[in-house]
């Protein structure tokens, strides 16, 4: 983890200081990563979409559609969690360490609740659905997303533990980067959520 505590160098004419350049690089790198890796989720959506053509109707005949109630609440929890992550970063920026810890605790709790619902949904796909691509692609997509959510919740937790001890300065990249990863998880889920539960 890079420390941003060192004093900034005096910028030379026309060239950004080392610290500014590093922040600029991190931000652009994160944006490109998000644009890039969302394509893996888009690929999964295309898989789902192409496999629908193997069937005359979707969900296939004899398979009950997934109940969107529980996943919708989980989606709301995830959105709220992303919002809290944002609030937490803002609080830390303005020096409110308590605000940061409260927001991020809430965000992580909501994130874990979201993942619990996803596990429940993943386990409870009916046998009839699993006999068709309707169930198989659902498990593919939720499972693929879950792996990312799990990894990034671990990142949030790691950054939270350091951040709650005041490890980061107010212009730290670590919090911003972790938050942006969590937005990525949120956006990726929104795409999947719409495709899985609403596009019939």
């Amino acid at each position: 983890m890079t420390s941003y505590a060192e004093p900034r160098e005096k910028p030379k004419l026309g060239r950004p200081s080392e610290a500014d350049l590093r922040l600029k690089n991190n931000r652009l790198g994160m944006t490109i990563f998000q644009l890039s890796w969302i394509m893996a989720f888009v690929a999964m959506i295309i898989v789902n979409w192409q496999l629908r053509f193997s069937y005359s109707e979707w969900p296939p005949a004899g398979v009950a559609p997934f109940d969107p109630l529980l996943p919708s609440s989980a989606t709301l929890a995830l959105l709220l969690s992303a919002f809290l992550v944002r609030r937490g970063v803002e609080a830390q920026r303005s020096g409110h360490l308590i605000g940061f810890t409260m927001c991020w605790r809430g965000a992580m709790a909501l994130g874990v609740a979201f993942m619990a619902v996803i596990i429940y949904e993943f386990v409870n796909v009916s046998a009839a659905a699993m006999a068709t691509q309707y169930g198989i692609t659902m498990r593919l997509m939720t499972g693929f997303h879950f792996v990312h959510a799990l990894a990034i919740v671990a990142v949030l937790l790691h950054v939270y533990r350091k951040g709650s001890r005041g490890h980061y300065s107010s212009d730290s990249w670590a919090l911003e980067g972790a938050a942006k990863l969590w937005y990525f998880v949120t956006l990726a889920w929104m795409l999947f959520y719409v495709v899985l539960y609403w596009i019939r």
Partner: protein
Amino acid sequence: MATIAVPLGAEAEEQVADAVKRPALSEYLRWSVDHKIIGVQYGIASFIFFIVGGAMAMLIRLELWSPDLDLMVSGAAYNSLFTIHGTIMIFLFIIPMWAAFGNFVVPLQLGAKDMAFPWLNAFAFWLIPPAAIVVLLGYFVSPAEAGWTSYPPLSTLFSGDGQTLWALGAHLLGISSIMGSINFIVTIFNMRPPEMTVWRMPLLCWAVLATSIIAVMATPFLAGALTLLLLDRVAGTTFFDAAGGGDVLLWQNIFWFYSHPAVYIMVLPGMGVLSEVLAIHSRKPVFGYRMVGLSSMGIAFVGFTVWAHHMFTSLQPELRIPFMITTMIIAVPTGIKMFSWLGTIWGGKIRFTSAMLFALGFLSLFVIGGITGVMLAALPFDIHVHDTYFVVSHFHFVLFGGSVFAIYAALYHWFPKITGRMMNERLGVIHFVFTYLGFLFTFFPMHIVGMLGMPRRVAVYDARFTDWNQFISFSAFVLGFSTFIVIYNIIRSYYRGPIAGANPWRALTLEWQTTSPPPPTNFVDDPIPFEEPYGYGTAASAAYLEAVDEAFGRDDPSQ
């Protein structure tokens, strides 16, 4: 003009050589975050894979010497041989080899101290050896037999466990490629000196930028496809099995959505190299600089719209014509480059260095590969030569005649910068002659046997093709032999080559405005780029080069 402050002075060449020590060879075996070390690590690793993959090609040609099975115990053994040949050459040789030159040259051309994310850079490289071990292990355990394209159901129902390892290894290589490409894009956007606008960027940087954009946007599709393949093989899903509601065309769509853009990942940096080498060694500005930069972007963009031309025989018929049209359109930006190269060398003061010879070799061979590409884009012709040696010939013309010739041009061109010593030009010319003739007589006759109907990917063929195949195999052995010349040249020149000096080619781009090899921070002071990267033949450029000579000591062994 140039304000390059390096406290060396116009002293004797030994002093210049002593001023910058080459890294010890053991440095290259260790974790290092220096982009120059990482570049050489990429280069050496991928060159080793080139030799391994080349040895496999020799075995393939030996098997095809006679129409019957002789070297191979079975057709399946032959299948796994060409599968691993293709996999090594694409994933472990060409793609990482461009990461080698990109890593070494791009930060220097931008006047940067290192890449934007040095640690990530090293990590991306160190993913390659384990990935290679996994892939090669698969070959010895229970080899994949489905070709490098791994079409199901060949790759799900017929291939051994090596196919699973193949998919795991390819997954790692894809992740490495994405990380490397993010690094290149951020470096190119953020690390340029303030004087260097995008329109003053060297064309290799343009090409690497376009390549990296393709890699970050397309490689996740490979990851998706490989995930499905792994699940089908290991977890019992049926994505590619029609009996379970799956679709075999699903693989072809997702895989080619990555792998067609990936052919531009393999050739675009070579096109960038060509613009550099042709301009520098014919002492002329690049003809139509802006259009060349934009045509790289054009190829990157149009490259995403053509994937289904690999599926002309399996696609829904009504989709064929649109893909035929987009495929033909991609010849336009490629043609722009072709004419730019011809315009660049036209009337130039050409020096036939080894780098220049290989660049001219690329020019002549790639145009053949490009034209057969347009032929294959034409649907009726494609169906006629589908899965014949015509296709084999086409993609070797663009990947060997294109990429590998550009890799050799880049090697001869930047070797002095990398090691501080010149390569032997006489050996370089001999290497070029053997490579060029060996290549041409290996792959050009394949067009003919392909049109006569010899199918690809078979060990046993009709006896009437025997003469052709013996001629092809003989030429292939000449081509294989030519590689030993360059290996000898590299080793000999590394120890005994003449000292190169800072700027042996008298080039204007920034990588030459520092010592050879560059110091760990690349430049002693922030370098100032010349107003035009290829502004040769003006009084201002002569003054700039004069200033560089004064700063680093005049040293021009090529004269």
